[in-house]
């Protein structure tokens, strides 16, 4: 690399005469090369609905994580939270792409993310709650990653759709890291100072009512909901116990309604308004 011709040096290895100007930086078809035909015997409507809900969970949580950007308590956490947000954003994109193939509309990922309203989103309500403090965001991440990892681990082998199974298999490694990150911080904060312990206790109290809704989600595809529930409960119990914390018992009762049915808190609409603002202001534009 010669520092006298910076751009030429950057273009090394590119034969295209336009190489010094710009390179493609994206992959238009994230499922390129994957057989996307829906296998016989798979209920396309059910598959689309379940992929959509899992995509919505991931997108909404990624949006909340993006809000942490430039606000994290330390640079290492800045990098980690962005990493987790990017993983979830990636999961959402793959799942939306799958929905577009399966639901018969042929819509692309952006149609689902930017041109649906809050009542059409199917994410669990835990994902849409505002970030609160770092304790709240860590507890939310712990609960959601425990649940999603338990589910994706099963979908990777049990999902009758090869695309969903592949997305889940890819996600397992990511989610294992998310859960580890959240568990590490749960230990530090639970066992840290009086203030951090108090904040974690408050966060758990606030989150508890939403855990029931999450655990009540039917995984579908013949996956035993009870086994998912048991794994989540056991892992959460281990982590919280080690941190000297516990989930308040009254959280076992689900709130009325479910995000999976389109019931949302008042927090989702403003989140989406921000997410969709530019795309909707210039609907004819290409990005």
């Amino acid at each position: 690399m010669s520092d006298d011709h910076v751009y030429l040096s950057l273009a090394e290895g590119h034969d295209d005469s336009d190489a010094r100007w710009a390179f493609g930086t994206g992959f238009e078809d994230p499922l390129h090369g994957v057989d996307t035909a829906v296998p016989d015997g798979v209920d396309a409507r059910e598959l689309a609905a379940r992929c959509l809900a899992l995509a919505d969970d991931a997108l909404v949580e990624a949006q909340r994580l993006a809000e942490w950007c430039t606000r994290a308590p330390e640079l290492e956490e800045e990098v980690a939270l962005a990493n987790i947000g990017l993983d979830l954003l990636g999961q959402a994109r793959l799942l939306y792409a799958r929905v577009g193939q399966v639901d018969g509309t042929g819509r692309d990922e952006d149609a689902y993310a930017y041109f649906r309203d809050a009542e059409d989103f199917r994410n669990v309500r835990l994902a849409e709650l505002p970030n609160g403090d770092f304790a709240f965001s860590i507890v939310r991440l712990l609960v959601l990653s425990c649940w999603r990892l338990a589910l994706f681990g099963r979908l990777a082998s049990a999902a009758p759709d090869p695309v969903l199974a592949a997305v889940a298999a890819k996600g397992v490694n990511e989610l294992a890291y998310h859960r580890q990150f959240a568990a590490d911080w749960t230990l530090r904060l639970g066992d840290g100072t009086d203030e951090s312990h108090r904040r974690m206790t408050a966060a758990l109290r606030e989150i508890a009512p939403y855990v029931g809704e999450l655990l009540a989600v039917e995984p579908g595809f013949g996956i035993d909901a009870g086994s998912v529930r048991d794994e989540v409960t056991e892992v959460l119990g281990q982590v919280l116990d080690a941190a000297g914390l516990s989930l308040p018992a009254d959280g076992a009762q689900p709130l009325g309604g479910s995000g999976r049915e389109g019931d949302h808190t008042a927090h989702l609409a403003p989140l989406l308004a921000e997410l969709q603002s530019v795309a909707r202001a210039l609907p004819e534009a290409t990005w």
Partner: protein
Amino acid sequence: MNDGPHLPEAIDNPLGGARTPAVNSSYHIPNERSVGKLVAMTTTDSVPPAGAAPSAAAEAGPAGPDLQAHFDATIARDQRIEPRDWMPDGYRKTLIRQIAQHAHSEIIGMQPEGEWITRAPSLRRKAILFAKVQDEAGHGLYLYSAAETLGADRADLTERLIEGRQKYSSIFNYPTPSFADVGVIGWFVDGAAICNQVPLCRSSYGPYARAMVRICKEESFHQRQGYELLMTMMRGTDAQRAMVQDAVDRWWWPSLMMFGPPDGDSPNSAASMAWKIKRHSNDELRQRFVDMTVPQAEKLGVTLPDPELRWNEERGRHDFGTPDWSELQRVIRGDGPCNAQRVERRRAAHEEGAWVREAATAHAARRAARAAEAVGTEARGEVRTEKGTAA
């Protein structure tokens, strides 16, 4: 033109990698400031010794002429100074100042574009931008680590930033009112950054030079992504083309100022070049940036807002107008459009995160104490067993 080897071979561990003992073992003599101690810095930041070229007579001081001679010879041979090597105080202070400012710029530089992550108009653009801003946090971490090899401390440098005692690049004090700004920052600001930084891959200080290798690779990726966004927008609607031109108009002159004041007004440049911390003058780098950017602007179909900009056949380079240096001075002084907002955000994040850092520290201490206690208990247990056995 290739003027010699530029990149260090080892890039896997940019902050590691001691030189071969044969080269420098004879003067691995740590002095009192070389490792692990916070180096005293004045609030006005250090200025290298007058007369630019550091001479043995002026700099050797109590360290003695041999150490200075070794240092000078290492620089003259174009070899690297490493953390454990003796180095003149002025060299150390200049490096800490430059690396800290660079680190601060990466961290503050997350803000102008970071504001658009939650609003990026497609999921692909969202992922690209999120990853870019994350890279900047990584660059900041990297550079603070490089500064720590000189005896600085990250927490202390952060305090200096939020108290306004250390600077960051003034370019980040300009606002980002439209999504086109994301593209233009990538094209201009990252483009200017790599013009500045590719030569720094050959900087005389090893950890800084190695950090710059990875940073430059990522910056160049960001630059291409920015330009690609602008290409896409220029192929879009009239409204999008107008957004791009507007952003170009706003960012062009501030980008030219990123290279610093004209050579005649740059007090620190001469010494930095003599020490080979820096390889090219501000004006030379600015000229390179203009020459590289003009044809890209033509290709893109935007106009650069400088009526004096034209090709000079005789020089084989572009002539261009003079930036408003009084504006640069104003922004550096703190009167830019977003200075207060940028520092305030950084301060708020730091202060609101204090309880988290305290908790982590307390937990680590408690865990260490528990581990020590466990070892102690085990040891006592063994002693009892031995006694019991003996009895």
